[in-house]
């Protein structure tokens, strides 16, 4: 079973995304802050990460940088969760090494396809 780390501070969003992932057979790890997310990423070595870029304690970019800095080969897939309003951030995140992004609001019907498409393209 694939293990996913979800870094998301909003409890409702976190519950929504982990519920959908679990229903699709993924095992989920949860972090509600950037700091916690980095710790879990290093400790648990998940198969990929879903990262909300608007976190209370630090910028999503900083979280991404910290995770990338700790990797040997830098190929742990990190998918950003961005808000529609933040179109400027997307280019910034892709340039900083995100592997893809999904947009809020999360659409339960299509979100798994989007995630799986991004992961497939990385193979």
């Amino acid at each position, binding site marked *: 079973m694939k293990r996913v780390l979800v870094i998301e501070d909003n409890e409702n969003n976190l519950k*929504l995304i982990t519920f*959908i992932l679990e229903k699709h057979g993924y095992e989920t790890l949860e972090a509600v802050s950037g700091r916690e997310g980095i710790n879990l990423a290093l400790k648990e070595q998940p198969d990929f990460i879903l990262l909300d870029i608007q976190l209370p304690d630090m910028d999503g970019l900083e979280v991404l940088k910290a995770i990338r800095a700790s990797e040997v080969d830098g190929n742990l897939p990190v998918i950003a969760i961005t808000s529609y*309003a933040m179109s400027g951030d997307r*280019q910034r995140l892709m340039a900083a090494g995100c592997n893809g992004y999904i947009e809020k*609001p999360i*659409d339960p019907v299509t979100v798994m396809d989007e995630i799986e498409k991004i992961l497939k393209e990385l193979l």
Partner: protein
Amino acid sequence: MNDNRKTKKQLIQELENLRRRMAELEQSETDRQRAEEAYRNAEARYYTLFQQSPNGVILVDAKTGETIEANETAYRQLGYTGEEFTALTVKDYEAVETPEEIEKHIQKVIHHGSDNFETLHRTKSGEIRNVHVWAKTVQIAGHSLFYSIFQDITEHKQQEEALRLSEERYRTFVKQSSEAIYLLEIEHATFDTTLSTDEQIDRLYSQAIIRECNQIFAISHGYGRPEEMVGFRIGQIFPRLARENVDYLRAFIENGHHISDVETKELSRDGTVKHFLNSLVGQVENNRLVRIWGGKQEISRIKQAEEALKKAHDELEQRVTARMEELRQANEKLQKDIKARKQAEEEIGIINEELRTVNNIIAIVSKDLNVLEILEKVMDEALHIIGLEGGTICLVTPDETLDLAVHRETSEATILDLTTNRIKIGDCLCGECARDHKPLILREREAVLKFSSREAERREDIRFHAAFPLITGGRCLGVLCLFTRTNQKPLERRLKLIETVTSQIAIALENARLYEEAIHDSAILEDKVRERTTELENSQNGLLTLIEDMKVTSGELEKANLRLQELDHLKSMFIASMSHELRTPLNSIIGFTGILLMGLSGGLTDEQQDQLRRVQTSGKHLLALITDVIDISKIEAGKLQAQVSEFSLASVVDQAAAALKVEIARKGLDLEIALPAEVNLNTDQRRLLQCLINLLSNAVKYTEQGTICLSARNISDFGFRISELEENNSEISPGRRPLRAGGHNSQSTIKQDFIEISVADTGIGIREEDLPLLFTSFTRLESPLKMRNPGTGLGLYLTKKITVELLEGTMVARSRPGVGSTFTLIIPKNLNQGEIQ
């Protein structure tokens, strides 16, 4: 002889005795023979009984456990022949007890005389059989024997086990079921199902009582253990007061005594009402209702969640409406304030400029006592403040003529004319001014010509001329003239300002003159100087007061500025907080509704699906609305930047068409797309897509039948196209036809810089008088479709804003009521053309 001889009597007696004994002996022999026969018969009977008994019978030596005798049933059951079996001891077929235990058990039987127990026997083939054994000890010829009779009860045991398992499974199912399960029985055995429905309902309420129920059932009614609810009448849980419950029982009866998934309102121990989804199955035998099985699921939470969702949604809608109104008002106020601020800023700029000039002039006239130097500097400052190029200052001479002292941009001819033939007081422009002690301001060329009497001056083509007398102590010391050959007209207030400073200049002139005179006459001078200085001071004080006043005004304006900046900041904060505050919970509502609709949390009834879908649609609508408001605010605040990338027109058109596909199909409309081949754009893809979706969505909304046509073409001469669009309404007609590669610019030498995209529909159209309202915010035109189509009144406003302010293009709407509307965007293909070329 007497002693040895017996009497006859004696002999007869003896003989009689012998005979009797003989008879007795014979009798005894017969008896014995009879007894023997009886015994033999009995033995044969018992042996037959023993052999043919349906139970196994074994006679065992109590000491050794060896088989003495066994009947056929016994050895057959154990799979042996009679001989084989006779060679066995108990331990060979006993499968439970060890030899030591068998020994003990035998001793126990001997001690108690008998025993009765169940054990297992092993057959010759190794099979294990359940048996029931009766054992009894007997003493035969001094031997302790016991016989045991056993019965094979394996089948019986298996059935018993099967029954037990089945019972256990049933109990476990009922106990662990997530549904509340219960059994109703009719108190007085049964009732007739041919009775009328109402009578049956009465019977159910009076006679049906709960016999069994599971934990879930008890808990869902607020009880701890199922036993507490046994004996309840159904009225205690399905109150008759709730009409749903009676309807439910009616439906149960009329449906043939079974029913499923019907909502009921049931009572809890604490009196609260809970919602259940109920199913009942009645057992009817020979028209008698015997018992009813019931199962139900509590749906109060789902109901509550539905209600909470609806409430949250209503609240949000209210909040958004209120916020939108606030935002609209704030916006209006802000626009007004910004306008006022801009005006104020302009004024402040002007006033500051004026103040600086006045200060300069005052500084000049206060410091210098050299007349020419004063006049040179005053000339420059005066021209600077009034914004004109030409000027002169003439001084009144004792012979009542005007002497040209300073000049700017004055022709050689005029200078020569003025110096060789001085103007007399009362003559020409300056003379008239010096005579009347009044400014003479001529704003038109004709007026200048009317007053100008000198040939040289008349030839100068002066279109504005202002002459100010320099007066002090009731005497005119000179004339300051300012003029221009351009069409520029100076501000009235500037002219007033010049008029104000002329007295200062005059005083300075007078002082300078007196100073020069004082070289000859210092005594007179001192007095005069003192007098003039006082005058100057007074005049200066007046000016200083004016300056103070201006400073106060300037301070107020600065405060107003600060407040406006605060307001602007507040607006930004408000938008940011609205974005987060409204969007985050709304996203949760939409997300979780989606999950419920997908059935990921369990099945839903059709009704629930329908209601949730309404929640989802409304949520999405609300989100779109908020997003529009935020976009508009950002554009208005200048905070939205175009994200330029290269993409093909076809790809963005495809995306827009895909977004509306379902809606177009639902209304049975045709969508035609006609694009020129291989158009690549370098602009903001996302925003262009947003515009196209808005236009398509509008077309679909206001078209009941016919075709929606999305077409595009390359154009290069933007100005030409606009006029063409406005003149020729039939230029773009719906329908598939090959588009020329941009009409008049088909020659490939002309560069194609713009793309024109049109969305044409065959809908209700727009009245001509309504066209100007199209692109205003929060406006929705009156139409029969308005009520049916949800809309914010922001779509076209936003689309136009994006087109104009982000994509740097333009947008045109044309329409004929009842025929259709066409919305056309014209945008540059390369948004960053300057940078790329």
